[in-house]
């Protein structure tokens, strides 16, 4: 299955070059892959994975190891940021 994987702000450096221009990459995953496994696959620092959204909805840290991604979903991750 494939998901749309997006990394923003300082985390965009963890994307391969072809994904940096759009902050997004199509990622091939085996069935049953969790959010945490994707985070580990790309070597993202845990403390930098502050805002984790699946299809725009926030996933609390406690759920990330168990939540299995589905085909076509969008996983987006930001470090601690703010604005106003």
């Amino acid at each position, binding site marked *: 299955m494939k998901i749309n994987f997006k990394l923003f702000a300082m985390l965009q450096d963890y994307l391969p070059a072809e994904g940096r221009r759009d902050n997004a990459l199509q990622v091939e995953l085996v069935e049953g892959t969790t959010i945490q496994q994707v985070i580990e696959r790309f070597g993202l620092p845990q403390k930098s994975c502050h805002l984790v959204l699946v299809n725009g909805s926030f996933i609390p840290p406690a759920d990330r190891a168990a939540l299995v991604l589905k085909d076509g979903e969008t996983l987006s991750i930001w470090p601690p940021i*703010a604005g106003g």
Partner: protein
Amino acid sequence: MAWTRNVLRVDLTNGTCKSEPLNMEWAQQYLGQRGLATKYFVSEVDPKVDPLSPANKMIMTTGPLTGTPVSTGGRYSVVTKGALTGAIACSNSGGYFGAELKFAGWDMIIFEGKSLKPVYLSIVNDQAELKDAAHLWGKSTWHTEETIKKEHQDPLTRVCSIGRAGENGVMYACIINDLHRAAGRSGVGTVMGSKNLKAVAVRGTNGVSTIRDPKAFMAATVAAKKVLADNAVTGQGLPTYGTQVLMNVINEMGALPTRNHRDVQFEEARKISAEAMAEKRPSDGKSHLVTNNACFGCTIACGRISKIDETHFSVVNKPEYWGASGGLEYEAAWALGAANGVGDLEALQYANLLCNEEGFDPISFGATVGAAMELYELGILTKEQIGMEAPFGSAKAVCEMAEMTARGEGFGKELGQGSARLCEKYGRPDLSMTVKKQEFPAYDSRAIQGMGLTYATSNRGACHLRSYTVASEVLGIPFKTDPLVTEGKAGLVKAFQDATSVFDSAGVCVFTTFAWSLADLQPQLDAACEGNWTMEKLAEVGERIYNMERLFNNAAGFTAKDDDLPPRLKTEAAKTGPAKGLVSGIDKMRPEYYQLRGWDEQGVPSKETLGRLGL
């Protein structure tokens, strides 16, 4: 004590400047800046006053921590009855002007009356005089600042001024200081223009020598700065990416108002985001973003300084715009961009530069363009009326409309009235995305429910800076709440409103609250100011200020009916994203909020509430 204890009262009608002692009894009840100046204002001005009449007053005010070594201690505010809203207005700005005013020895300047001819106020420490501004009238804020500095032969003179927008009666005109910092919302610059007051120039060499306990104060400020530096948001996120980093977050969440709130996601959001600002352009190989920037005493440095693409159609023959200058910040990028369906970063920066140069609020301007574009697409406004084709997505139209509004030409005069008056005139008041005639900022209240209540109950009209529940609902600061539910939002909004009232009254930037709570501000205030500033006292001051503003608005004629959102947000569900199918739950949240506030069903504070707060 941190206050200078000096108030400058400027009678523009008679051309006099007089010093008077600060009311220290009020300072203990309202702290400073937003709270204390509003206390002066509501005590001296009839709530029914026409905002543009000489009877309206305007107060430029610092806080007790302004000009001190506290982080972000460069803030000042402008308090008046807003031209755009007819409600209490308090617009807060950074830069260096506020600290300089304090260094000159003044807590606030109260402007009253109206000058017969254009003037500017010159302050050098305790010497204040009104000077002729005939040669500055009709000029931009940039020209005004440069000219005054040259005339004073002092580049360290700090200047705030209005541009042509304030002179021409654009209802959302700003007061600009230090080239690109703004007391931006509610039309405080319009009020300044109505008084024939072009600028205030100030030079202060006294510093702030009134700290109650300097040793304790320095210890408290050092500790608080460490909190900011160690926090990932204020120590890394904001300085690196600025506020603009929110563009993709809010879009992914389906909370980015797009095309006059028809949609909640913008397909070109990434093209106008912080990430895009940092990329090299194909045209010249340079990035839009040049550097970050800090206001006086700030250890966060969130500001953006950018250089526009010299080959872009908007500036191709205009070298005066090619230098590094302020922007884009998130709110401006959203209002000029997503709100109109425009994904051209350079066009947004050009319009933003015009807003700074001529002094008008990019949020209200951009949102008004969005309303005009919807009226155009519905066939209610024509190409002939507007003077151009103006469909959603037209970068050219945004740029030309900014020029027309800045100059007060053609359809720009109508855009300068704001979306409420524009949509009312053309028979579609429902298309104005406003509360109390002030345009929404960049968060859709169908997808971030707390922000709907924030907008509806903001005392200065729709505004995100009166209770930024985005911090909790989106960013998890200080704790994460679900943005899609209404439960708990009344208490959240009240807590944010009261705490923000304190920060706005202290002389510091509200962005510190991404890392600081009141518990971090309290020891700094208590060390600086006499009066035993406990947490309990600060909490009460915040609530007192919010209720005082409310009482003014009620007396001005506002009622519970004005604490509402446009019908679109209550009846047209979000089409995409996590909030798909949702409308705002404002009607559910408002009664609970009134109850928590101690207000009756009409939004009037009860006698018990007023008695408890000493109002």
